[in-house]
């Protein structure tokens, strides 16, 4: 029963969310997060589980989306057999699978850097083709559809956003469970082995190429499901969905969330999409922050956010009270970090304001304080905060690290209890 608990909790949270946040904006946001979780988990089947870095995985996401809108429109024109919208995502999955098998055959022949380059090549090629082949992809305009094609069980039409939210939540839960179980199959384990050591795998009877191909295809299947859900949610598909930009975004989500653990991509997709949707209206520098965040994760905690949590797992598994001595050093370090980050954000915001301010904007409000980027005072203040914070970070980091080391050493000594 204990193993089922997180799933039941997840389902309950998903059921409850729309009752807490019921606006159309929130519903769309949560729906998007739901399908991006599927996409991110699918992506992590490649990067985290299989060790394949792809710069073009949005191809399968987007092509499934294109297929879905076409199919919906064809249903409307009664040219194809009717499939209820509830099951349409499965169709998208098979489209993803088809292209995954096809393109995967070529691209998974190599691993590592070469694989990354091939994925980039395919990504660029497909994006360019969506603009050239207007009859299929309708160029820059993309394709519109209407997801209300008929009444389904219990009178669901998928007109109201709340119904689409539950559709996505259901598929999200299903796919998450399926992908979780996949990690526990022989395929999943060998996929990890290929990630760790592709050469060795060849000497225990496996073709690492074949494993990569399989992982790639299955991942494309789930990416396809996500793409179809996207098409149903937005009722539009355009070249942005196949573009390298979309691939880069999912890479950021997965890596910042953490490739090493199953929940990492879920954390990453939720956090990043939420930040993106709320911050783009507030600051122009969002992409810069995203890039810096990504670089910082690579440099300082390659396990991502989930890695930060799981590194404490051995400690609280033994006893939660072992975490107590960590609190003060962590709080100090965190305070220093927040200060330096806030200082830097202030400086960046003022720089942006100076370089691209509109004449109708006369004031810059940073953290609720009105700052005039054309006077010296805020520059001095923010520089001061940033530098002082930076020094404090350097001073407090060693004690935080040693606190963790002590705790983990204690955890090894003590028996479980």
């Amino acid at each position: 029963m204990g193993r089922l608990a997180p799933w039941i909790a997840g389902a309950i949270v998903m059921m409850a969310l729309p009752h807490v946040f019921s606006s159309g904006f929130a519903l769309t946001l949560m729906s998007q997060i739901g399908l991006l979780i599927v996409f991110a988990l699918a992506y992590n089947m490649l990067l985290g589980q299989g060790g394949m870095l792809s710069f073009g995985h949005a191809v399968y996401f987007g092509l499934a989306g294109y297929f879905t809108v076409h199919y919906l429109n064809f249903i409307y024109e009664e040219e194809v057999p009717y499939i209820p919208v509830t099951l349409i995502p499965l169709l998208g999955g098979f489209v993803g699978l088809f292209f995954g098998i096809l393109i995967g055959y070529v691209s998974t022949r190599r691993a590592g850097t070469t694989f990354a380059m091939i994925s980039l090549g395919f990504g660029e090629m497909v994006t360019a083709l969506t603009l050239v082949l207007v009859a299929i992809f309708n160029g820059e305009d993309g394709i519109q559809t209407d997801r209300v094609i008929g009444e389904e069980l219990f009178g669901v039409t998928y007109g109201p956003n709340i119904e689409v939210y539950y559709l996505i939540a259901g598929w999200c839960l299903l796919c998450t469970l399926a992908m979780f179980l996949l990690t526990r199959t022989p395929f999943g384990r060998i996929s990890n082995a290929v990630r760790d050591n592709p050469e060795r795998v060849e000497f225990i009877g496996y073709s690492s190429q074949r494993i990569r191909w399989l992982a790639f295809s299955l991942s494309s299947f789930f990416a396809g499901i996500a793409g179809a859900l996207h098409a149903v949610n937005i009722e539009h598909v355009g070249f942005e969905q196949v573009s390298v930009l979309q691939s880069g975004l999912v890479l950021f989500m997965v890596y910042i969330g953490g490739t090493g653990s199953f929940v990492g991509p879920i954390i990453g997709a939720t956090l990043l999409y939420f930040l993106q949707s709320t911050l783009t209206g507030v600051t122009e520098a969002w992409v810069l922050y995203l890039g810096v965040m990504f670089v910082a994760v690579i440099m300082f905690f390659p396990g991502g956010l989930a890695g930060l949590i799981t590194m404490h797992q051995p400690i609280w598994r033994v006893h939660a009270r072992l975490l107590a001595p960590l609190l003060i050093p962590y709080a100090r370090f965190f305070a220093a970090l927040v200060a330096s980050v806030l200082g830097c954000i202030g400086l960046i915001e003022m720089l942006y304001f100076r370089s691209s301010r509109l004449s109708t904007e006369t004031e810059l409000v940073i953290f609720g304080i009105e700052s005039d980027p054309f006077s010296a005072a805020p520059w001095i203040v923010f520089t001061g905060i940033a530098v002082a914070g930076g020094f404090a970070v350097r001073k407090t980091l060693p004690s935080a690290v040693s606190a963790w080391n002590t705790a983990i050493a204690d955890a090894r000594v003590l028996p479980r209890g």
Partner: protein
Amino acid sequence: MESFIFAMFNGVLYGMLLFLLASGLTLIFSMMGVLNFAHASFFMLGAYFAYQISEGLNFWAALIVAPVIVGMVGAGIERWGLRPVHRYGHVAELLFTFGVAYVIEELVQMIWGRVPVPYEIPDAMAGALFTWQGFDYSIYRVFMLVVSVAIFVALFALLTYTRIGLIIRAAVSDPTHVATLGHDIPRIFMWTFGFGCALAGVAGVVGGNVLGTEPAMAIQLGPIVFVVIVIGGLGSLGGALVAALIIGIVTRLAIFYDYGVGSLVLALGLEIDTTSMLRDFTRITTAQVAPVLPYLMLVLMLIFKPRGLFGTRDV
């Protein structure tokens, strides 16, 4: 014929510009095993620095100073960014440079704004050097060709005749070997990275005013450079040169000799259904797909000769 020669001239020119970028990338890759995703961003920095310097001083100062600054920036990023990531492996390094590309693009927008900057060809080289068969061969384009050929020759000489070149060649063929000879590997890495970036910077200085200096230039050129070095064979300078020239020339000729799939279909006597969703396939002409051709070549190359033209090393 005259237009063929003009197309060839431009193909070679574009190819040499690609080679300037690809050579730095190849050098870095050979030495460090790092595929520098941000390479085209250093190209962009070269162009922006050159613009800034030529505003204050002149183009010639920019030609010397801008690549040096770009090289310093590159070395700095290697020293304080890439080196700590090294222990996490090549994929992490590739990801790091991917992130750096994002950050550089945003910083450029923050400093120089989101619209193109007016980085112009110096007035002294604005005209035509000579006109042949009705086509102008501009002074500046010929100058670009001279610069890129000169750098190629210098690079070749450096690798063949100097001690540093010896170390680099040794490292290219066997990276573990050099460390055992007592060389300070981290330092060599840092300067290799800086030098590679400086080469991209040179390309930015001479190419930025022709291609346009704007924040999107890195994203637009970057992928092509990767195609060049993969087709040429990762880690092969000669391969990079050949691949760069092939891509330069092929994309130019595809525009010139504009053949369409449609004419092929007609020649085969097939009927085209003009209402079919697949009709666009029959309308494609080589000129339309010229910018996509490198990627097509990449895919074909990887199917038939995965190591590239002159590749000796697996990744």
